[in-house]
């Protein structure tokens, strides 16, 4: 009776997963490129943003068409609403990826701080894992998982605070490198915001499943998923 509608809903979810997987991969690649001073890959990640933007618009338009044609209600409506929000979050996360790529190019040949080499990959990996799990929660309609993911942001925040302190020390000791320190701080900020955007995705997944939107701000997280990377 509603086979074509179900097919369209599945296609929309598949598009989100496809786009999300690419964003995940780019998060890792842009960070690696940043650490390794790989300007070629950084440029690729910047260029990839245009395609992500186009897909964000297409998925949004497809969702609107589905609303117009099927007039969805209840769980269907919440799913399409979540898709429209999540696709926006993914697009914004990719903007941060593009931002890190641009900073990479700005920094040019200047070597980055060793502490970045030591800790930025873990920060990026945790943010990527958060994104991966939030998309898994989306596709599985797994409320519990969506509620647990935000706690992983503590790891990202702790690494952010540590690296930020290192940047301040560096800038204090080498006042001529203020501009470089500032660039590093922005790269750090972009990574940290990516994880925050993932929390928004989790909030929409919980809404999609339960019908209740609840902001998962600091201090309200459940325990993080077992066996996931945590900063020691």
């Amino acid at each position, binding site marked *: *009776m509603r086979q074509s509608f179900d097919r369209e809903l599945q296609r929309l979810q598949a598009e989100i997963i496809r786009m999300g997987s690419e964003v995940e991969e780019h998060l890792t690649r842009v960070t690696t490129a940043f650490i390794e001073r790989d300007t070629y890959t950084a440029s690729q990640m910047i260029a990839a943003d245009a395609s992500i933007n186009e897909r964000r618009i297409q998925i949004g338009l497809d969702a609107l068409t589905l609303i117009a044609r099927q007039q*969805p*209600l*209840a769980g269907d409506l919440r799913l399409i609403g979540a898709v429209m929000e999540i696709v926006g979050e993914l697009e914004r996360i990719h903007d941060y990826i593009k931002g890190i790529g641009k900073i990479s190019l700005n920094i040019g040949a200047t070597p980055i701080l060793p502490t970045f080499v030591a800790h930025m990959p873990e920060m990026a990996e945790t943010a990527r894992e958060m994104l991966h799990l939030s998309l898994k929660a989306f596709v599985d309609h797994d409320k519990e998982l969506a509620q647990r993911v935000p706690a992983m942001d503590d790891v990202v925040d702790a690494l952010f605070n540590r690296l930020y302190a290192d940047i301040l020390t560096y800038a204090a000791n080498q006042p001529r490198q203020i501009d470089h320190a500032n660039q590093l701080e922005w790269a750090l900020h972009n990574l940290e915001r990516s994880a925050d955007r993932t929390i928004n995705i989790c909030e929409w997944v919980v809404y999609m499943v*339960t*019908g*209740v939107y609840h902001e998962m701000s600091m201090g309200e997280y459940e325990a993080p998923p077992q066996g996931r990377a945590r900063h020691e």
Partner: protein
Amino acid sequence: MTIPASDPSSGGPYAIEAHDLNIYYGSFRAVKDIDLRFSTHKITALIGPSGCGKSTVLRAFNRMNDLIPISRTEGTVLFHGKNIYDADVDPVQVRRRVGMVFQKPNPFPKTIYENVAWGARINGFKGSKADMDALVEESLRDAAVWDDVKDKLFQSGLSLSGGQQQRLCIARAIATRPELILMDEPASALDPISTLRIEELIQDLKKNYTILIVTHNMQQAARASDYTAFFNMDTDRAGYLVEYGQTDQVFTSPRNEMTEQYITGRFG
């Protein structure tokens, strides 16, 4: 008439209430164990698959089921605190205060003016001709059909389009100054524009009336109502109330899985 007069200052939050309502057609129980209270000056949509008893429940509120010889009603329907099924209540009096609009527009084969004046006359209207003219105009205006008919008040009501006829029937219903208006799929025979006009009209009418509307159109229920009651048919084929809540909640986050299944088109 033993139902207390309408007094807005002393009126409770509910226009009408059903308690333990069971309605039978012969030995067949059509609806069972209905407990529902309808908020005053609100629009409540009654939805559910065919045969779930929603129209039967609607008709219980002005004793229209009494007109079906084999029907029998158990339980109470409280209107101003009085059970309208008590032996000392005249069903005709109930129907004057609880008006009804049907699926198919059914104007009388009389003039537009007479269609509306009839409602007032059976309600014991004793004013002058000028008073009646004013009442007819006011009712037609309230029913958003005055501009369509003001120049042809003495033409047959049957000369109007379907949407205009339905608004004429609403004018006829409100000419008796009811407190509650029951609508049984009032727009299902109308085109989309006429349907939207009826829905707009319903929104305007709730300032003065409490409205119960049976509809098969989910979008109409979602657009036009404040509250929604979902009925379904049980294994014994008796209709029962599954979920009742604010329309926003029912259509975005229904509490009952069956409601979810129905409004998303998985059955019914």
